[in-house]
């Protein structure tokens, strides 16, 4: 009601003013009837009524909402002021929108991967069950969320009481192609109740049920996602019953999930979901011939359940914890050593909130994203300081106007509101533009983090939280840069301002103390950001320069899948040999070799080993299986002994090549040649033994960041478990594109059924540094921006000071000060700002460095050279920025300066 009235206030004013006129007419007529002259009658009528404007005003006020009314006036006034000074308005809106846009984009990503709940029914009821602290687990780990073994999952499913429905899931990339180049699909292994737990309904067909998830089910039913349905089947509703091939096995499509359901993993989207009972048929490329469903040491599942009504997470957690011992007892992997069993039995299950889904993306990027948000926030703060400085300058230009208005009785709060309106207008415009910008920026961020083999899916629909964040930022910035000058402008007593119009020789120092403080804080913050930027770029540089022990350039990896050929075990190794030989003769190929583990990108295979005849205890050693020529191909030099060769066959002595780290760990630096390496296995099995025949230089194993680990390379041809997969490392001097087609042609000539996936080694390694690149790029960008902004701020204040001190400088020069003296005087002033800023900034930078420590490689968070470079660079840029106004001061003609009153 009051709102309606507010919008109809003009209408009512119109009616009332006509009504008042009609009163005057009627009264006049009556007065004439009473015998007055027309003129007199009209005057009398008007006297009787009183001032019609006052009456109308009273009614208007009744209808109006005073605050809104004046707000509207203030905003219009502010808009007019800004129109008078478009340069300022453009700079202000642009810098605000950039700052707010960057902050919103980063927050948007944080919101999407951390804060937002899954788009399923009542996500707050979802909880995951995993081992609270899993130390020293051993076995086979596959997938991004390898929390559980199938045996444990079945035990939990059969014994838990806390969940109304519970389900297990795992992830895997399937190959849709039958032979030839691979076409990947993001797959999910799910237990029967998965969709029931999440409360997802199909839009076509039906979803998987417990009836589909039965031991020995074979390749049967698959549920596909909406986007996969659109992509592969063009959204055809007759998709039900059609077959899709996953790693060569045909599955029947039984249903499609809704558009907004992207799976349970935030940051990924799934294409196809199949029951976990089908795992023995399909198996994982990673585990090769291992059937994970039966292996009690195969960790490949995660568990999510929906809590029963009235159960809290804490109660459910206590419940599964109490069950732990009996469930673990029933599922001890038979191959485990005493030590492993002890570790295993010490595990305790727990329940944890899962409403926001699972996310490996979150684990990897949550910390960097919060840090980037802090960095972007500081940049915005520096930009605000600049604007505040500009506003201060404008406010001092209006000082007299404001003093006059105060003197004739304007209320201080009304003046503050009017001055704030200008800031509010800028902030609103900046936020609106920033919100638009953020849409593209957040997409850009996701694109940065997406690689060919690792497609990300982040739902970037802005939600309430994002809008609230942007709005909050706008309000905050407005308060920061708008309020400060306003308070100062209205605080000064009108008398002082009006009296000082005659201008003294110098301004009282406290008159622009606020601007000095702003510049000092700008310098401090930009030092902090510059230091941070240098740390992150330095860390990335260290990573790129690190000696990994192998060559990175010019190596193509062909990942081959022979499983369609159904080769018998004894044919597999000779077949791989033949493939290698054929690849080696492709023109331009220098060498080619097989290697089980692609180094530096996260692959891992480790065993407990010991040296025969050595008293040293068993220790972990990392393994890879390679063919002859592997070390040559990767450029790893032999230090002693020999490489594998064609005489290493299944019938000859089983041999191994170890690296330097192995030598220092297992043989105390003595030559290991001729000694025997033993691998510990489960009870009843024969422990394999390898005679060490060579030593190679250290190489990184699964991560570029790691310390060198002890590695034992064993011969591919001597394996007793030949599989149907192969990583072929090809070193060549030709470009990758023609090489890829040549290799494709050669392989197709051997058999069209060979599955192929190409990777460029350098690209893979480069992608493994994604997080470091993100931090270095963005921190570097923001650092440069911060320095630029601070430089502008310093320049502005120095120019202002020069103008303020024109008189003083004129007098000094008239009294004999020479130009260098003036320059020195001005630079001394700038130096004080810089010194104060650098001092505060150093303290801040050292504190902030600690927060960044975990993201740095080979760099101390307080690295003195980096800090020195940051300080030096900032001081140089700052002095250069102040030199311009200083020279301008020195060039002044004293006569002009003094006359310029």
């Amino acid at each position, binding site marked *: 009601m*009051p709102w309606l*009235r507010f919008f109809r206030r003009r209408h*009512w004013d119109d*009616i*009332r003013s*006509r*009504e*008042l006129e*009609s*009163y005057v*007419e*009627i*009264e006049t*007529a009556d007065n004439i009837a009473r015998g007055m002259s027309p003129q007199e009658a009209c005057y009398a009528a008007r006297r*009787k*009524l*009183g*001032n*019609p404007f*006052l*009456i109308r005003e*009273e*009614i208007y006020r*009744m209808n*109006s*909402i*005073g605050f809104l009314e004046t707000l509207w006036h203030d905003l219009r006034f502010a808009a007019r002021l800004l129109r008078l000074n478009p340069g300022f308005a453009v700079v202000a809106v642009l810098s605000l929108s950039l700052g707010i846009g960057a902050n919103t984009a980063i927050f948007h990503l944080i919101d999407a991967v951390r804060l937002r709940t899954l788009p399923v029914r009542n996500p707050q009821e979802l909880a995951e069950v995993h081992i609270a602290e899993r130390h020293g687990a051993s076995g086979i780990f596959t997938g991004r969320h390898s929390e559980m073994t199938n045996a444990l999952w079945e035990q939990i499913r059969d014994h838990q009481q806390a969940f109304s429905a519970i389900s297990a899931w795992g992830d895997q990339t399937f190959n849709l192609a039958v032979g030839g180049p691979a076409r990947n699909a993001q797959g999910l292994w799910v237990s029967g109740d998965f969709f029931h737990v999440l409360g997802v309904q199909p839009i076509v067909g039906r979803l998987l049920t417990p009836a589909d998830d039965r031991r020995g089910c074979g390749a049967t039913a698959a549920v596909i996602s909406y986007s996969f349905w659109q992509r592969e089947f063009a959204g055809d509703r007759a998709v039900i019953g059609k077959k899709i091939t996953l790693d060569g096995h045909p599955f029947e499509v039984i249903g499609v999930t809704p558009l907004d359901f992207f799976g349970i993993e935030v940051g990924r989207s799934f294409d196809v979901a199949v029951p976990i009972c089908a795992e023995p048929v399909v198996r994982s490329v990673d585990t090769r011939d291992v059937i994970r469903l039966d292996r009690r040491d195969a960790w490949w599942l995660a568990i999510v359940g929906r809590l029963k009504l009235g159960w809290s997470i804490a109660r459910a957690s206590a419940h599964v914890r109490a069950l732990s011992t009996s469930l673990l007892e029933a599922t001890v992997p038979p191959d485990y050593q005493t030590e492993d069993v002890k570790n295993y039995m010490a595990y305790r299950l727990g329940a944890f909130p899962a409403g926001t889904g699972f996310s490996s993306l979150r684990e990897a990027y949550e910390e960097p994203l919060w840090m980037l948000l802090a960095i972007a926030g500081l940049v915005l703060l520096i930009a605000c300081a600049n604007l505040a400085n500009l506003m201060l300058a404008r406010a001092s230009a209006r000082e007299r106007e404001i003093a006059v208005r105060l003197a004739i009785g304007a209320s201080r709060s009304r003046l503050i509101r009017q001055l704030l309106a200008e800031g509010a207008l800028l902030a609103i415009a900046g936020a609106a533009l920033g919100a638009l910008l953020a849409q593209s920026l957040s997409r850009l961020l996701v694109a940065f983090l997406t690689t060919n083999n690792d497609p990300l899916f982040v739902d970037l629909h802005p939600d309430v939280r994002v809008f609230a964040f942007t709005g909050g930022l706008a309000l905050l910035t407005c308060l920061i840069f708008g309020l400060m000058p306003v308070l100062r402008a209205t605080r000064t007593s009108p008398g002082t301002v009006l009296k000082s119009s005659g201008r003294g020789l110098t301004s009282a120092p406290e008159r622009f103390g606020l601007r000095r403080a702003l510049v000092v804080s700008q310098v401090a913050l930009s030092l902090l950001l510059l230091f941070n930027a240098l740390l992150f770029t330095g860390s990335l540089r260290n990573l790129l320069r690190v000696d990994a022990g192998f060559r990175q350039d010019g190596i193509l990896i062909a990942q081959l899948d022979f499983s369609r050929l159904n080769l018998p075990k004894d044919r597999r190794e000779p077949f791989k040999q033949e493939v290698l030989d054929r690849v080696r003769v492709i023109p331009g190929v220098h060498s080619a070799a097989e290697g089980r583990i692609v180094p530096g990108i996260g692959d891992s295979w480790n065993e407990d080993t010991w040296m025969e005849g050595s008293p040293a205890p068993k220790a972990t050693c990392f393994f890879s299986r390679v063919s002859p020529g592997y070390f040559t191909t990767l450029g790893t030099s032999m230090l002693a002994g020999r490489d594998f060769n064609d005489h290493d066959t299944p019938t000859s002595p089983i041999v191994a090549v170890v690296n330097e780290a192995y030598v220092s760990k297992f043989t105390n630096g003595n030559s290991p040649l001729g000694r025997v390496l033993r691998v510990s296995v489960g009870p009843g099995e024969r422990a394999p033994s390898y005679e060490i025949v060579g030593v190679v230089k250290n190489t990184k194993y699964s991560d570029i960041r790691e310390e060198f680990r002890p590695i034992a390379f064993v011969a591919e041809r001597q394996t007793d478990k030949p599989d149907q997969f192969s990583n072929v490392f090809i070193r060549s001097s030709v470009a990758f594109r023609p090489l890829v087609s040549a290799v494709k042609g050669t392989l197709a000539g051997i058999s069209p059924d060979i599955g192929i996936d190409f990777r460029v080694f350098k690209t893979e390694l480069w992608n493994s540094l994604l997080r470091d690149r993100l931090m270095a790029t963005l921190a570097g960008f923001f650092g440069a921006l911060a320095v630029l902004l601070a430089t502008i701020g310093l320049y502005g204040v120095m120019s202002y000071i020069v103008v303020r001190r024109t008189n003083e400088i004129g007098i000094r020069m008239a009294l004999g000060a020479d130009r260098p003296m003036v320059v020195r005087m001005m630079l001394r002033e700038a130096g004080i700002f810089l010194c104060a800023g650098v001092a505060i900034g150093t303290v801040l930078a050292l504190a902030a460095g600690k927060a960044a420590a975990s993201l740095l490689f080979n760099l101390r968070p307080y690295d003195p050279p980096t800090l020195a470079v940051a300080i030096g660079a900032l001081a140089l840029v700052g002095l250069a920025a102040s030199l311009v106004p200083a020279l301008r001061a020195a060039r002044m003609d004293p006569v002009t300066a003094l006359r310029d009153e």
Partner: protein
Amino acid sequence: MPKRDAPPLQSDLIQGTLDMLVLQTLVLGPAHGHTIAYAIEHRSDDVLQVEHGSLYPALHRLEDRGWIASFWGTSENNRKARYYRLTPAGRKQLAQQTGRWDQLVRAINRVLRPATE
């Protein structure tokens, strides 16, 4: 924004009284502002002198509260005038206010002339 919660007693008395008088005037039928002002003066034997200008904000307030409704009409001497009529809500309000007024007057009288009561 017009204040709906109770203002200080004195002005409440005056404002409330004017409202009551206006509503009472309209009981007899629709009238325009000029008529209402004179009617109040006449009926009080010119004791209550309404400042005619102040009547209009009161009329606006009453209309805003839905106690009276207005429309354009033609006055006795053929001029366009804004007429007001009592709404059912206004009638109820009048009864309520009159009752309260009577109570108030009786109470004040009891205080002022305790002997005669």
